[in-house]
């Protein structure tokens, strides 16, 4: 019972220390700016080049007209970039913060908030690629774009509990990060990011039963001006609710040991 109370106060204190994680996360991004002219825009640029190149090759391969394929691909990559980085960086969220954890008494959740904040900033850098694509293909934004806000919020909410769990587990078992990053790669190919879901009409399992498809949709659909499907809302919000309850119970048990593990 006491551990549950301590875990809850860790989360609250972490949230309230927004000045600290705001600055730390911002500094993480600025660090990338510091010694190069383009900074994090390098990532944006490389994403742009990749999407451009892939768009022409795969659009042809899948016999999809480029003016519908390229925006789809770009939206998918921007979404996937956020989701996959959040997951892979979750693995190192506590291990990388070892210096802080072993020197200062800070709420553990603070490190997760920092991670999420940093990736949100980088997401908006990458979203520039989509802006360029939208201009080139004359996609006029409609009100549906506003769904991006709740969509992003659901992704970040899920990222929070995933960060707490993966961060703690990976601090304890150091081989998990490798497993996670190979799984992420497999998921990338199995999720409709490079290919349109219609192409797999006879095996809808990979689309509709794949939670990653729904998380990608939370960003991609609003960008493309499409409505987010009801299933997507239900699955992603359900994931968030169930996941966060289980993650909280796990965190309440693991919290006091994280300092030993890192």
């Amino acid at each position, binding site marked *: 019972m006491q551990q549950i109370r301590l875990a809850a106060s860790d989360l609250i204190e972490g949230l309230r220390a927004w*000045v*600290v994680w705001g*600055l*730390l996360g911002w*500094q993480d991004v600025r*660090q990338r700016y*510091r*010694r190069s002219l383009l900074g994090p825009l390098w990532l944006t640029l490389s994403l742009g080049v990749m999407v451009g190149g892939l768009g022409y090759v795969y659009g042809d391969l899948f016999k999809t007209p480029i003016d519908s394929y390229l925006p789809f691909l770009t939206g998918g990559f921007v979404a996937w970039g956020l989701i996959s980085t959040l997951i892979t960086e979750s693995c190192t969220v506590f291990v990388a913060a070892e*210096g*802080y*954890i*072993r*020197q*200062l*008494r*800070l709420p553990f959740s603070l490190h997760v908030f920092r991670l999420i904040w940093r990736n949100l900033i980088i997401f908006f850098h990458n979203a520039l690629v989509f802006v360029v694509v939208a201009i080139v293909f004359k996609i006029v934004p409609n009100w549906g774009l506003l769904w991006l806000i709740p969509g992003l919020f659901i992704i970040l909410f899920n990222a929070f509990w995933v960060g707490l769990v993966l961060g703690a587990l990976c601090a*304890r*078992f*150091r081989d998990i990060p490798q497993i996670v990053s190979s799984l992420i790669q497999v998921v990338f190919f199995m999720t409709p990011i490079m290919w349109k879901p219609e192409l797999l009409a006879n095996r809808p399992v990979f689309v509709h039963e794949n939670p990653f498809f729904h998380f990608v949709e939370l960003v991609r659909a609003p960008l493309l001006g499409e409505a987010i499907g009801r299933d997507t809302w239900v699955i992603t919000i359900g994931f968030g609710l169930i996941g966060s309850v289980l993650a909280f119970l796990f965190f309440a048990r693991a919290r*006091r*040991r994280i*300092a*030993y*593990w890192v």
Partner: protein
Amino acid sequence: MARIALENVSLDFPLFGAGSRSLKKAFMRLGTGGRLARDSADTVVVKALRELSFTVVHGERVGLVGPNGAGKSTLLRVLAGIYEPTQGLVESEGRPVALFDPSLGMDMEATGYENIMLRGLLMGLSRPELREKTADIAAFTELGEYLAMPVRTYSSGMLLRLAFAVSTSFVPDILLMDEWIGAGDARFLDKAQERLHGMVEESGILILASHSEEIIRRLCNRAFLLEGGRLIAAGTPEEVFAVYNDQGRAHEGF
């Protein structure tokens, strides 16, 4: 009024991945004090602290003495609230500030000024408080124009000055230090000690782990001798060093 009370505090430190023999051996060579016991699941558990009970009150400057691996650093981390003990109760009134490794928690790419802000925020100061104190802190470091340069260009002595200046820019209730005051040049050491003395006089508690008998005698008015995670002796630094040296051990450890 600052106060720390420990009641029957024990801490078992699990060493994971110790199933591999090499790590275990390496640790056995390293750790002299911590008793190694085998957990059921092939995990080595170090009994880092055992049944510690003591009370430290306002104005006391406590030196922690003992061989390497006696549990001094672990005890400091327990007092800082970083490690939660496996057993027992830690009660502390007042906010602890720990100065363990000065370069930890510094952003090497950021400038000295940015690090003052960052470290200050991490220690729980607010932005307005920090803006008010920045000039004072900068003056104490004597780093001048270096403060506008990235910290990665600093020498370790300069880093230490910066960390010390920020961490001591306000009077903490409880100051915890792990053997680093010896770094830096002699003049800065004098200055640091002057500041420390002032801080302790004004308020709070100092707990300092050190191998240097001279530093503990100069700074502390009380001392604890730890060995194998147990509190062997407590008293004035003179008394405790008498016991420690009697055991026929050099104070550098083994």
